[in-house]
């Protein structure tokens, strides 16, 4: 137990998590501190490019083969299934409307890249490695949950008798685009392939950029995320207790599912921790965008608040060391 505390503390006392706290506190105090949106988006791009490249380069070094593809498929399946669980829990305990429950469920089946990136630094700080193709698994997990969530919400809308919904195709052209080719999927997968194709010689060329700067940029980016999360805090007032609780217990459920998958496909301790984080984290960029396109009836204030204001901070501050401790306790082995 004291070991768990110690882990939590070492996570809390990293410059990254403290930067997040700084941003959160600044926004709470209504400071006008603001990171220009263009720069925030550029930092996000950088982090995705770097994490993708590092994953690809790691895979190139370790070799991979068919096992990698199977793992990726399995991750996609997890993303497609988690929303059923989430939807069931929401309908049973939260009092959310069906359409909102479907939308929220999609977010929790999907993933948060920033949470993963933060966790990857935590893992590295424990002197652990992780399987390079986890990045590809993450990329694949963005999307399937959207399909499941939409299916659940639209089924409910149809029952309520929305003649209007009938006219709508299940997948509009824009939606398919948004789902398969959104910026984060393209950069993650693209950089992953580039890292894999150019291997160690490619890595030698870009290491100062892709590796050395990583932590520092992550600090500023988490500062920005802290500002962002705290500025959406007002959304919390409109949510019921059951809904808010979901934002805390669903990550735990997702983490367990992630650990189960990690066990099934035989990941090491670092990889299992990250897999738990993928299960636990919820999207707040890609899925909201898809929901506005395809499910405008759902209330964005609900799903954005839950994933960004409740679950994201929970995971970054407490979840990551917790999932790591759980993975270690369950006997996952270092690299």
């Amino acid at each position, binding site marked *: 137990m004291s070991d768990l505390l110690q882990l939590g503390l070492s996570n809390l006392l990293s410059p990254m998590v403290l930067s997040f706290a700084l941003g959160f506190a600044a926004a709470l105090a209504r400071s006008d501190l603001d990171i*220009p*949106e263009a720069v925030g988006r550029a930092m996000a791009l950088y982090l995705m490019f770097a994490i993708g490249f590092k994953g690809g380069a790691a895979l190139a070094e370790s070799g991979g083969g068919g096992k990698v593809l199977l793992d990726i498929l399995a991750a996609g399946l997890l993303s497609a299934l988690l929303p059923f669980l989430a939807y069931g829990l929401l309908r049973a305990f939260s009092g959310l409307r069906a359409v909102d429950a479907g939308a929220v469920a999609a977010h929790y089946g999907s993933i948060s890249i920033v949470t993963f990136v933060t966790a990857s630094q935590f893992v590295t700080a424990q002197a652990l490695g992780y399987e390079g193709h986890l990045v590809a698994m993450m990329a694949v997990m963005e999307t399937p949950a959207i399909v499941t969530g939409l299916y659940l919400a639209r089924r409910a809308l149809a029952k309520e008798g929305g003649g209007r919904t009938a006219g709508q195709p299940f997948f509009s052209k*824009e939606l398919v685009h948004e789902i398969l080719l959104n910026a984060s999927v393209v950069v993650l997968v693209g950089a992953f392939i580039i890292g894999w194709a150019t291997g160690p010689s490619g890595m030698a060329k870009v290491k100062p950029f892709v590796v050395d700067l990583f932590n520092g940029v992550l600090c500023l980016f988490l500062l920005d995320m802290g500002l962002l999360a705290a500025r959406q805090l007002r959304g919390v007032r409109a949510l019921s207790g059951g809904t808010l609780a979901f934002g805390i217990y669903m990550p735990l459920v997702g983490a367990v599912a992630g650990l189960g998958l990690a066990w099934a496909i035989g990941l090491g301790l670092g990889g299992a921790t990250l897999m738990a984080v993928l299960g636990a984290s919820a999207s*707040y*960029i890609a899925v*909201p965008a898809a929901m506005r396109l395809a499910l*405008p*009836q759902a209330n964005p*204030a609900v799903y954005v608040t839950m994933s*960004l204001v409740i679950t994201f901070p929970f995971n970054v501050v407490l979840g990551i060391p917790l999932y790591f401790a759980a993975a270690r306790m369950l006997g996952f082995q270092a690299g």
Partner: protein
Amino acid sequence: MQTHQRKKVEIVVERARAPALVEAIQKLGATGYTIIPDVSGNGRHGKMGHNEVLDVYRSTMIIVLAAEPLARRIMEEAHRLMENYTGIVWLSDVEVVRGDHF
């Protein structure tokens, strides 16, 4: 310089819906449109921000010059397309020089 009476339709709408509106404007036969890409505001649906990280809280302003009948059709269609979305639309009078352009 002789001028011609035309109407100007202005629309403020959340980002996710802007492409659908622009498509409709073109289909209805407008000769063009102008977009102010990033505006913020407040209305029945609450606050929208500019330079927002979250695209769901951003909005866009669209300006279309057209002859009155087309302008009114655009206004009507815009209303239809903004159901379930954050947005407003209004109409006003303008004078243009090149009547053949609008």
